[in-house]
C-alpha cells in the first residue's frame, strides 16, 4: 500500500511540473500503477529503501542512483544494482 501512496503523490507532483523520482521495493505493485515518472527498483526487502541502516556508503550509493534519474525525461524505470538495459530504452537529457 505504501507503493500506491508513493505513486499517487509522485503523479500529483509531476502533474504540477515538479520533477520526481521514486524508489520501489515492490515492482509488481509499481507495474500495476505504470507508467510512473521515474522509478528506481531497489533489490532490498520491504522497509529498506536506501539499503541498510547504519550504512552511509550504501545509502549514498542508492541515493545517488535515484537522483541521477532526474536527468532523464519521464517515464523511465531503472534497477539497482544496475543491469544491462537495451540501448534506445531511454535517452540522456543533455541539459542537466
Amino acid at each position, binding site marked *: 500500500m505504501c507503493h500506491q501512496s508513493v505513486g499517487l503523490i509522485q503523479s500529483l507532483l509531476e502533474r504540477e511540473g515538479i520533477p520526481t523520482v521514486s524508489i520501489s521495493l515492490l515492482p509488481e*505493485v509499481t507495474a500495476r500503477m505504470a507508467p510512473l515518472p521515474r522509478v528506481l527498483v531497489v533489490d532490498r526487502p520491504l522497509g529498506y529503501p536506501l539499503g*541498510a*541502516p547504519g550504512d552511509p556508503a550504501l545509502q549514498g550509493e542508492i541515493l545517488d542512483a535515484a537522483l541521477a534519474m*532526474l536527468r532523464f525525461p519521464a517515464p523511465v524505470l531503472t534497477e539497482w544494482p544496475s543491469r544491462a538495459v537495451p540501448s534506445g530504452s531511454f535517452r540522456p537529457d543533455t541539459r542537466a
Partner: protein
Amino acid sequence: MAKLADLKLAYRAYMRGYSYRRIDWTPGAMLSVPLAEARICVVTTAGFTLPGQVPFDATARGGDWSFREIPADADVRRLLTSHKSDAFDRTGIDADANLALPLDRLRERRGRLATVHFSFMGSITAPERLMDTSGPEVVRRVAESGADAVLLTPV
C-alpha cells in the same frame, strides 16, 4: 527485491483483489538547474513523526491520509515511527531513519536541500482523501518551498 508472494497470506489475498488507484500525469517536468545544485525534497511513507507532532492514527478506517512536515534541520535520530503495517520489517527504519528519509546523506552530499520534507504513513487502502486533499496540499507546500525535485521512498 520484495515480491507479493513473500507477504503474509492475508495481505496477498487482499492485494490480489485490490484495484490500484492511478492519477494521470503528463511528461514534461524537468530539472531547471543542474542536478548538483538542485534542492531535493524527500517525501516518505515511513510514518515518521517528530517529538511534539501528533502520531499517525493506526486505527483510522482506510488509513490515515494526513502528513507531517519535517524541517530540513531536523535531527533524524529524534524521529519516531508509528507505522501501523506489519507487512514489512521496521527494525531498519527504527535503527536509522536515513534508511527512508536520508537527510543526513543529502546534507553530506549537497550544498542545498529543500527547506521542508514530508512524511505520510503509507498503509492507506482508501486513498481518496490523499488524492484530493493531503496530496495536493503537499504539492502546494513543495512548490512554495522552492524545491527543485522530489525523491519519494516507500517502506
